[in-house]
């Protein structure tokens, strides 16, 4: 308890002071209430959107479920496709060289710049959003899987060969474990990309989802609801990312962090 207090106490204090100052400044007219809605107003807005919903019956839970559902659909499809493809490409250096320019270019395309094209192809419905998320996640994921497989320490492979390990055993017992930390890092990065893309994709052609909520709230001059939506997006992104990190630590205890690789 004491440790906890000395660690988080100052931050918490700063936070409380800041909120109080903000509340004071808006209620006394130093800040415009529409531009900087007071914390109390945000809290009231949250009660409203959690019970009655905004716009019309769409509570914050519905928006959240919709957004998370869209992200997961695109994300899982992208990861499911990128892992086997990435292993294949990473394992054969000729294949890697054949595909290198395509992968570099595919990754450089700004995902949201595809929005108009994807709308022409699939309309403004659900598929468009899922495809965009899938596209963004796919390239992040596949480049990391390829790098993970390609940069497995050759000493490890040679050592395993010396001990007579080859074929599928070499893959399962040496290459896969060595590549996993990088693959997990890719999975986390891809999720970040998914969150980024969904917010943009939801701003057009829908009223459901957190991205739509924050945009719609602005149209109705409900800035406090915009802020609530932003915070919820941030909290969910944070929770899922730290969930993945814990999973990673549990599943691959030999992962000592990827600082070296990232540099």
């Amino acid at each position: 308890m004491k440790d906890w207090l000395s660690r988080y106490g100052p931050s918490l204090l700063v936070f409380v002071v800041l909120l109080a100052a903000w509340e004071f400044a808006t209620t006394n007219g130093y800040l415009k209430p529409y531009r900087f809605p007071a914390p109390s107003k945000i809290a009231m807005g949250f009660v409203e959107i959690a019970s009655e919903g905004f716009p019309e019956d769409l509570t914050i839970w519905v928006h959240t479920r919709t957004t998370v559902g869209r992200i997961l659909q695109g994300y899982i499809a992208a990861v499911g496709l990128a892992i086997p493809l990435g292993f294949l490409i990473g394992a054969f250096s000729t294949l890697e060289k054949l595909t290198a320019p395509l992968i570099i270019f595919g990754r450089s395309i700004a995902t949201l710049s595809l929005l108009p094209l994807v709308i022409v192809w699939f309309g403004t419905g659900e598929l468009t959003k899922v495809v965009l998320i899938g596209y963004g996640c796919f390239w992040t994921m596949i480049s990391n899987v390829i790098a993970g497989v390609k940069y497995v320490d050759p000493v490890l492979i040679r050592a395993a060969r010396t001990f007579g390990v080859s074929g599928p055993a070499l893959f399962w017992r040496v290459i896969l474990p060595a590549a996993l930390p990088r693959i997990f890092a890719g999975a986390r990065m891809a999720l970040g990309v998914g969150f980024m893309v969904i917010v943009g994709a939801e701003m057009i052609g829908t009223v459901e989802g957190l991205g739509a909520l924050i945009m719609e709230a602005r149209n109705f001059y409900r800035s406090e609801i915009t802020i609530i939506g932003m915070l919820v997006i941030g909290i969910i992104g944070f929770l899922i990312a730290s969930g993945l990190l814990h999973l990673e630590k549990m599943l691959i205890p030999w992962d000592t962090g990827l600082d070296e690789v990232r540099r």
Partner: protein
Amino acid sequence: MSNRISAKDVLLGGIGTLAVLVPWEIAARSGIVDPSIFPSPILAISSAAEKLSATEVLDHMGWSLFRVFSGFLLGALAGITIGIVAGWYRTAGYLLRPMIELLRPIPPLAWIPLAIIWFGLGEPSKFFLIFLGAFFPVVTATYQGVTNVDPILIRAAQTFGLKGIDLLVRIVIPGAAPDLATGIRIGWGLSFGVLVAAELIAADKGLGYMIMHARLLGYVDVIVVGIVLIGILNLLTDGMIAWLIKKGIGRWHEV
């Protein structure tokens, strides 16, 4: 890490690219796929050239580049400054860190409505969004770099009598440089993504606007050319920044 590219690699890469482009071109020309929805690469460029003049495209491109460079520059500078201050001075860290940690998980695009509320629909709101795209990755990477500098280096420097600003400038910042470089590259990527999105949603010039407007007119070829152009710009500018970083900190670290 040796990254030499041999002639054979280029050849293989070329073959791989053609293996995608040629069937696409054939499919679009022979009508297997509808060329008005899925235009062939060559036809898309020539027909887009009829609809848009080069000066128009250059004008859009100029605006996009101006926005992204200026927003990124300010965002990265602010991120470096605040990251160093928060990482080096304990009190400042207590004040700044909770705010940064709270706001960091919010994707920059989620700031679009608030940016419009604060700054209106004009240039400043786009500027602010691009600023945010660069700021958060740079500030966290800088903070991390500064707090993770090898304590032995710092103690050694103190033994030699360095302290205060000198210690910060001559030991800590060079020590944090690799982290900083990572943050800058991530920040550039994010700024670029944010630029496109901001131009799609609210702008009257820029490449993002160009392709969104082309959709309203039904010009799929212009959209395709625009997407490719944005991709190429992203690739070139990222390469340029990577090169600058390598030149800039190469004397301290192997990158």
